[in-house]
């Protein structure tokens, strides 16, 4: 692994809206690097694949179910030329928490386009509906995988070790993006620890532009302001033991991985403190604008969210638009708390010109996040001025 140290404000402008979630007025969101410094992998056959060395044809046993999982660097079966191409490496990231402690995290790096770019969350993979996507994972210091969460490709491209394989050197994941919406990608090796370490980023599928404008999805709403809120919680004990042993607990040790007691709470990589505005994550919009928030619970808590003062609409859940004959947008009244389980995404639209919201200009409306324990549902570290599981930021119109 190479080590990069996270520095505040290092977010480059590449791609406009990045992992740190800069607010960008846009008519045309940055597509994934459809052509990067490295061309697409070209028109050659991926070559043969020995499926017996993977969970696809290999016999599943108790031993290889978790401990001695299939690993390797096979060719991508049924290789076909891509038009969107990404590379992801695995890197160390040290995050300085509000109590001054540095916590070792891991993030996916993008060696082609984003040196120095923030790695927590990892750089966004942004593609267009219909794109044939190749994501090349370059593992280092042991195996990793990428599961493109909510994307539904073949088993070999799904990134789950015990039914396919873990990536030893490198592998090119292949899929074609069908649904425009908000997805994410994360490592699915010893997931309990590798996801906790920060090996995740957003994956956004944009619809094809209509009249030069990119909507939330085909036939869906246009938005002027886009924000990513990815919520995470961290238990420093977990980071310590995982950094020491990449395979912690895998082969029989009791590493206490059934016990998760987070002390740190982050919004899109920004460490927060209770009752202190997460300034970097606030949204500022002009009256009349539409705001699209892509909300992901990447924590291991029950996440409770509450928008003060503003009426919001859920327009898409888990990357599937609420535009089917059996569903519709969900309106959430101001001040109404709702919860998200781990890994769920809500695409939230705020129409500042709607009847409910148009008189709300000139205020900073608070948005509260509460991280609740997965067994007791009590807020973590209640009452603690430093470690309580609460965060907030604002939306100013």
């Amino acid at each position: 692994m190479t080590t990069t140290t996270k520095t505040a404000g290092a977010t480059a402008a590449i791609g406009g809206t990045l992992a740190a979630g800069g607010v960008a007025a846009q008519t045309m969101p940055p597509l994934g690097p459809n052509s990067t410094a490295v061309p697409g992998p070209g028109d050659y056959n991926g070559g043969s694949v020995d499926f017996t060395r993977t969970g696809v044809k290999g016999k599943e046993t108790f031993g290889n179910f978790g401990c001695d999982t299939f690993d390797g660097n096979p060719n991508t079966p049924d290789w076909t030329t891509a038009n969107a191409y990404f590379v992801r490496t695995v890197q160390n990231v040290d995050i300085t928490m509000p109590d001054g402690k540095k916590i070792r995290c891991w993030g996916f790096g993008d060696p082609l386009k984003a040196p120095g770019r923030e790695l927590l969350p990892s750089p966004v993979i942004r593609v267009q509906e219909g794109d044939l996507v190749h994501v090349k994972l370059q593992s280092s210091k042991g195996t990793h995988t990428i599961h493109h969460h909510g994307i539904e490709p073949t088993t070999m491209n799904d990134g789950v070790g015990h039914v396919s394989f873990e990536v030893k050197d490198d592998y090119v994941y292949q899929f074609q993006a069908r649904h425009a919406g908000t997805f994410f990608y994360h490592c699915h090796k010893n997931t309990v620890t590798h996801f906790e370490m920060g090996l995740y980023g957003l994956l956004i599928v944009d619809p094809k532009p209509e009249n030069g404008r990119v909507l939330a999805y085909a036939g869906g709403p246009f938005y002027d302001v886009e924000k990513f809120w990815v919520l995470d919680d961290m238990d420093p004990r977990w980071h310590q033991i995982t950094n020491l042993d990449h395979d912690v607990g895998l082969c029989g040790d009791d590493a206490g991985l059934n016990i998760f007691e987070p002390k740190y709470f982050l919004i899109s990589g920004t460490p927060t403190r209770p009752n202190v505005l997460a300034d970097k994550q606030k949204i500022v919009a002009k009256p009349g604008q539409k705001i699209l928030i892509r909300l992901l619970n990447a924590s291991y808590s029950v996440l409770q969210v509450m928008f003060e003062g503003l009426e919001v609409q859920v327009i898409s859940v888990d990357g599937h638009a609420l535009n089917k004959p059996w569903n519709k947008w969900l309106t959430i009244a101001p001040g109404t708390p709702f919860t998200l389980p781990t890994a769920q995404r809500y695409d939230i639209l705020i129409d500042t010109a709607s009847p409910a919201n148009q008189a709300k200009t000139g205020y900073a409306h608070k948005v509260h996040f509460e991280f609740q324990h997965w067994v007791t549902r009590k807020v973590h570290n209640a009452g603690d001025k430093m470690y309580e599981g609460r965060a907030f930021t604002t939306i100013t119109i």
Partner: protein
Amino acid sequence: MKRRDFLKYGAAGLATAGVGLSPFEAFAQALTGTAEIKLGITDVETRLVDGDKVNMLAFKLYGGAGPLATGRVPGPVLRVREGSTVKITLTNDREEAHGFEITGVPGTKTQIAPGGTSTITFTAPVAGTYIYHDSLGDTPLYRILGLHGVLVVEPLNGVTLLGSRTPYSLDKLAPGSRTAVSALFDALGTTDRFQGGADGKWVPAPLTAEASIREKIWICSAIDPKFNALIERGKPIVLNPALTTNVVDNFVPSYFTINNRSGYDLHADYDGMLPAIAKNYIGEPTLFRIVNVGLAHHANHFHGNHLMELARVDLNPTSSTYGQMIVPENIFEVDTTAMWPMQRRDLLLPFEIPPDIPYQIPVSSPTGGQFQRMVNKQAQEPFPLRYVMHCHTEMSQTAAGGNYPQGMVCHWEVLGGLGGRAKVAG
């Protein structure tokens, strides 16, 4: 973790089809308007995925076969028809009192003295998925120790105007919910996305079966062995008020189960166990009735297909519909669903072609899609496509503090393309 002897199952232990058709003669009467079910409460031993054994408490079914007759966690899946009269006789083999209740069904709460018998009679409620359990003393203790099971109520009027079968009594739904449920079940088999014609419709399980090809029951739970250690077979539970007065606060689960199995023990279905794995062809939509009888908040995530969230229980105590089963008028398509303690959800896995398998190749001038090439045997990657389902609150993916992924993980399989089952059957 002990490298437990996983060959113990041997070839004979592997289930034949995993369909779970059990000899439920006891239920045949359910069809005719009255169901009589005889359950017992007894001690059992469960072997955990790492080979450790714990004592549990179980329901058993008089008239059942195999483990159902001797006691199994979870208890037998009971199926009755909406509006029918249901009589459940409970016999308590143990040396202490037990309780019984079907959450959300009035008139089902009772107590059974040690060695005694108790009978409840009630009218089967509105169609849906229910949890029966021992709630004696309003503690979840006996429930998490194994005294839990699922009651499925089949609809009286579950057929849409266009003739599609659904799990709900459409005449009892609010108009918006009826419209949404009808739109979804009518779409099955009839659209580009959900193909298959008449065969592409959802088919309910028989009243006499625990599960079927197109209907699975998943009962999520968790085990903290220090609570199981209170059980001594043939004796009342050891008194330990420090532990049992507030079960939730003292509960530190270290095994996470579906149908009382986890990890490798869920990779296949075995005879006598409640089956978990759906192995179907494209165009065979499958209903998952998922409940959580444990005490952790789970986030069940399916790979491979999004699922439609059909019904749930309102668990928000401040809501006007608290405790009620909600069939929504807004059916979300999700890859992750919140399974809180005592949540009951019905989700439809459409068995559509996994949407992100390259469907236009080559992308520059498409001539076809990879899935069809797989069906035609022109592709490298073979069937079955296997997709995991796991809880994303990943602590639940461990066993005994580590051993990822020996926890709450299961999978489902795409055996082949549209009409594949008929082709195989010849």
